[in-house]
């Protein structure tokens, strides 16, 4: 039955770097070779950072840890496209972006080790705390984007979340508000295909997550999230639009969580080794290395020295973590209110007496 068309929805996908390290010349952005090397370096550092945390956890020196292996391209490209004046609003699996924004690695380690000081980021780093309640941070992305816009700052709010988090009502309310107020926001979905044991196909019947942007009158795009050039292009474009007051963008970065959900999870209960293998060949790190090598920007010697650098840097983070003195009981109380109310003074005094006595 013929009907008139009132809306045409098209969602595009961007890919630049293939599995063999070849780029689509037409789509490839202009990038200083040193910057591309920096992409690679950061990805390798971040993987080492992650591997070390897993090792620490097995040794009982770390709490629950959410690995990012396989997702480094999204995080490194986004962090490197951001300016100091941009705000980062992470979910809980963005430790690479956070470190590259300027939060010391040992602080991130401290957080997951269960130390309150793991949230004491350095002054001046525009970064929200980790958001554990899935999806809730999308709203803050809208709010901070609105804040920047109202103040006329040429800066963007970049907010992250997983594929699973798009099912929460807060995703909807956040992106919708951003659309209405044309906030300076970049919404980045790390679609790693799984929300703990729930695959994307059980999360939503929509063919892509990027197309959810049509619900909000907001531009949306899907990128190969294991292709650091594609992520770089999409994020840079979105950041420029946001900073210029052109409104929000929704980016779906398709990737894969190669590891367990967290160290408390056993992914083999719900997915096959074959599936993991199919994605392992798309790993963003060897892919970029192939590109570098093909373009004469990398060799085994450089790799070796990067490995050494990574080990040293990571070890320094562990050392700094383990050098932190224990927290005093006051740490439970001191940041509840601007001025501590009398009942908390009493409770704190009682605890101190107990600990000291």
């Amino acid at each position: 039955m013929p009907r008139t068309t009132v809306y045409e929805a098209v969602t595009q996908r961007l890919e630049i770097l293939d599995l063999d390290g070849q780029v689509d010349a037409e789509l490839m952005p202009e990038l200083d070779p040193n910057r591309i090397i920096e992409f690679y370096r950061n990805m390798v550092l971040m993987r080492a950072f992650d591997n070390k945390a897993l090792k620490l956890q097995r040794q009982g020196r770390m709490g629950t840890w959410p690995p990012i292996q396989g997702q480094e391209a999204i995080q490194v490209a986004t962090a490197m496209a951001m300016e100091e004046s941009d705000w980062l609003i992470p979910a809980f699996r963005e430790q690479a972006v956070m470190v590259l924004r300027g939060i010391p690695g040992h602080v991130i380690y401290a957080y997951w080790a269960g130390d309150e000081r793991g949230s004491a980021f350095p002054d001046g780093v525009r970064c929200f705390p980790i958001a554990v309640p899935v999806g809730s941070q999308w709203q803050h992305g809208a709010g901070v984007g609105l804040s920047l816009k109202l103040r006329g700052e040429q800066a963007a709010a970049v907010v992250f979340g997983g594929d699973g988090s798009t099912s929460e009502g807060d995703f909807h309310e956040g992106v919708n508000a951003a659309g209405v107020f044309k906030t300076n926001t970049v919404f980045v979905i790390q679609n790693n295909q799984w929300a703990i044991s729930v695959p994307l196909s059980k999360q939503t019947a929509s063919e892509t997550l990027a197309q959810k942007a049509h619900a909000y009158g907001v531009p949306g795009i899907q990128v190969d999230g294991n292709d650091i050039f594609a992520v770089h292009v999409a994020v840079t474009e979105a950041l420029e639009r946001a900073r210029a007051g052109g409104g929000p963008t929704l980016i779906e970065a398709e990737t894969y969580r190669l590891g367990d959900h967290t160290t408390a999870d056993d992914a083999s209960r719900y997915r096959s080794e074959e599936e993991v293998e199919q994605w392992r060949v798309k790993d963003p790190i060897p892919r970029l290395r192939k590109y570098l090598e093909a373009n004469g920007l990398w060799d085994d010697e450089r790799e070796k020295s990067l490995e050494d650098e990574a080990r040293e840097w990571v070890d320094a983070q562990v050392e700094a973590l383990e050098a932190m003195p224990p927290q005093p009981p006051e740490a439970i109380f001191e940041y509840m209110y601007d001025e501590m109310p009398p009942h908390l003074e009493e409770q704190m005094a009682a605890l101190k007496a107990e600990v000291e006595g």
Partner: protein
Amino acid sequence: MSGATQRLTIAQAVRDAMRDEMRLDPTVLVLGEDVGVDGGVFRATDGLIEEFGPERVIDTPLAESGIIGLSVGLAATGFRPVAEIQFMGFVYPAINQLFSHAARMRNRTRGRMTTPMVVRMPYGGGIHPPEHHSESYESLFLNTPGFKVVVPSNPYDAKGLLISAIRSNDPVLFMEPKRIYRAFREEVPDEAYTVPLGSASIAHTGDDVSLIAWGAMTRVCHDAAEVLAVQGISAEVVDLRSLNPLDRDTIIGSVVKTGRAVVVHEAPKTNGFGAEIIAQINEHALMHLEAPVQRVCGFDTVFPLAHLEKLYLPNRDRVVAAAKKTMEY
């Protein structure tokens, strides 16, 4: 200070507080459903959009989690949002943003980031509206640290407490007793002034029994005190004004003096804030009590539709009866 005053209702005093603070502090924003062009369904934001424009008086989409989520983002980055939840009965969708974020931002960031925001919520019964428009959910917010919770009972306090709330560096839940929004007028200074958070007031002094309440119930206690006076019983009315921080000294001082107490609230009795008042008295004045503390509260039921709400709400006679019960124990 000009010292000029005007006779205002609570609703007008609330509006004036926002207007004055918006004039003084460019980071103060108002947002919520229908707060802009419409001036709020209770007219509590009347005229603000005309004076401050749509960038500071923001009509939001119909999404309470969104209103609070936006406010968290705004507050953490330099604004002082005053968010309106149209009726307290509709605060539930915002609970996650309020409890998981607004109340925890300071602690979670070790003081680096704060959420200086106010959430205004008309609450309570007495206006015969449809379902969900009469609720008093204060107790929901009082086992969750990180907020301040404030409830005025008259126009003077309403303005002064709201200004304190807007200036507070902590998130403040500001409950407005809609039943008495326009019930009476009082002289309210034109200029900005503050009433401190965390301090109760003795609305009426007495020696025999302490009637402890907040918001609209303060007036019910007042009426009860008058009836009791005629019967030779001298009742003291304690208007808590802040539920968190709680002015324990004033409560305990009054109960130590009278030896008897009645707590009055509209919310259901079980695990309402009245229980905490009793627990405080238990801890700090047990041996002064001449009789069990009485509670006059809503029933442990859903707040009924209009026809039966009069039966549901605490009233003067119930407070009088409870006070006499403490006298006759």
